[in-house]
């Protein structure tokens, strides 16, 4: 791999699938990265189905192009999305730097900022629940009470992404704006956060599996999902017989 290709992979590691809250490199969505000796960079992306939502597809492909274009050694950057029902449209839009609205026209009424914010908030909600569920943390825990684990680090990153405070005395359980919930609501809010976390984890299982089915061998390009590393064993343990 050339130096520029290595830099490109590192840049692509910063591109997140907003819905699954994981880098596209870990998900196996990067099909190939090629650089010529004179710095022309070509990247191909692939997704789990032809029908993955085009707004997410555009967001990831657009982010990839933006980050790669900032590499000082890249003379030119081509990002192409393969095998998608809107590949033609999206690739033409990326080539022309037309932006989301310029690519999709009338139906793309708004920019992608709101979509991005919605999923950042969901990612934060899920990270909060994971952090509190580890080692049975109390629902009223403060950031400083959390153990030094990857789950805690992930929560801090999500809070910073949203511009929320991260002082050790701040409560873990907060709303999208960083405000703590009144004590009587806390358990209920944690319960809702759990359904968000389950939803995101479930989508990740589904999308990762579909990519492997669609592109045999792509499992080699996927890194294990965080929840598989830290939380949930996949095998179902024996159930105690009801008495």
């Amino acid at each position: 791999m050339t130096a520029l290709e290595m830099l490109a992979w590192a840049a692509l590691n910063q591109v997140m699938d907003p819905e699954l809250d994981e880098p596209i490199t870990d998900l196996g969505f990067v099909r190939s990265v090629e650089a010529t000796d004179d710095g022309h960079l070509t990247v191909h992306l692939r997704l789990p189905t032809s029908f993955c939502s085009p707004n997410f597809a555009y967001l990831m492909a657009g982010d990839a192009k933006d980050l790669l274009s900032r590499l000082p050694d890249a003379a030119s950057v081509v990002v192409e999305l393969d095998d998608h029902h809107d590949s033609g449209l999206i690739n033409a839009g990326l080539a022309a730097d037309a932006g989301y609205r310029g690519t999709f026209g009338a139906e793309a009424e708004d920019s992608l900022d709101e979509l991005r914010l919605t999923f950042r908030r969901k990612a934060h909600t899920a990270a909060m629940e994971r952090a509190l569920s580890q080692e049975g943390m109390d629902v009223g825990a403060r950031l400083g009470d959390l153990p030094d684990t990857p789950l805690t680090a992930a929560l801090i990153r999500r809070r910073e992404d949203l511009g929320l405070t991260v002082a050790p005395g701040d409560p873990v359980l907060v709303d999208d704006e960083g405000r703590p919930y009144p004590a009587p609501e806390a358990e209920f809010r944690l319960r809702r956060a759990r359904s968000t976390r389950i939803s995101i984890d479930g989508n990740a299982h589904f999308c990762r599996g579909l990519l492997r089915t669609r592109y045999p061998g792509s499992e080699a390009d996927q890194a294990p999902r965080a929840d598989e590393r830290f939380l949930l064993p996949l095998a179902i343990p024996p159930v105690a017989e009801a008495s």
Partner: protein
Amino acid sequence: MYSKDGENYFIVDAHVALWDARPANQRNIHGQQFIDCFYDYHRNLSPAEETWPYEDFLRYGGERLMKDLFEDGYVDHAIFQPALLGAFYRNGFGQTEEAFALTRKYPGKLTYNHAYDPRFGEDGLQRLREDAKRFDLQGVKLYTAEWFGDSRGWKLDDPWSYRYLEACRELGINKIHIHKGPTIRPLDRDAFDVADVDKVATDFTDLTFVIEHCGLPRLEDFCWIATQEPNVHAGLAVAMPFIHTRPRYFAQIMGELLYWLDEDRIHFSSDYAIWTPRWLVERFVDFQIPADMTEYAPLTVDVKKKILGLNAAALYGIPVPAELQVSPPPAVAPEQQPAVAVA
């Protein structure tokens, strides 16, 4: 009916299809992409011994459907939930005439639900009135991500959609199934978004809205709406097969649904022919919430009976032999009950 350990289960498969996805019926590349996507779902989430050859998956026909559901699959009653996909398939994806003919050939076993698209305007409304009479419709399946001209989707709270829902109310079509699942499109008209369900469920309290795929990939949004709207139900199509590949995830889905909704508003669906009901029924009856998931109550036999068939039977007025009922039977929504004269 399925029997295990001395318990008998009445089975309603609340989401089945009879499709034709052969190349001759594909209008364009999207027709192929669509069935290939289904086939990937099928291969990814089925046990290896349950997977079909691609050719069979493109087109299986009515007699195979009858065998897979009723002879091999323990199903007592099945409900067609067709997708039209006229932009992708010449003669549509779901085969209306063939499916309807089957319901006539096997009375009591099959219910035909139809599909409409409010973007057809007045013509479509007239058609809906004729179809309601001809097919004796009780329910419809709506696919908000369907393409139509330049439009790649619609929302339940669009003005024309309201006109169609008003017509449904008038025509006695009181079960509205809505695909909110992993797919397809769209841009700002985000077909994943379940917020439009909230609006129509509030405005049409006399209709029951069954959200197919229980809002996956937005389970939490769906649960939040269903908690507040008692006429919103969950269909388990696409959620069911996780019982094989991701049993702990499946346990979490069931746990969340039972927590936020209640045991009377969850419906078993195989999504045939993406999956066949036999293995799903067998595994669901054997399934239990893992003991370490203490946040969820165990699944009782009665809850399984309700989910596997009694809930959908109550919703659709499908007769259930008394010995297969549970006590108390699933709650029937007020609009489904016979009208009672009030003095």
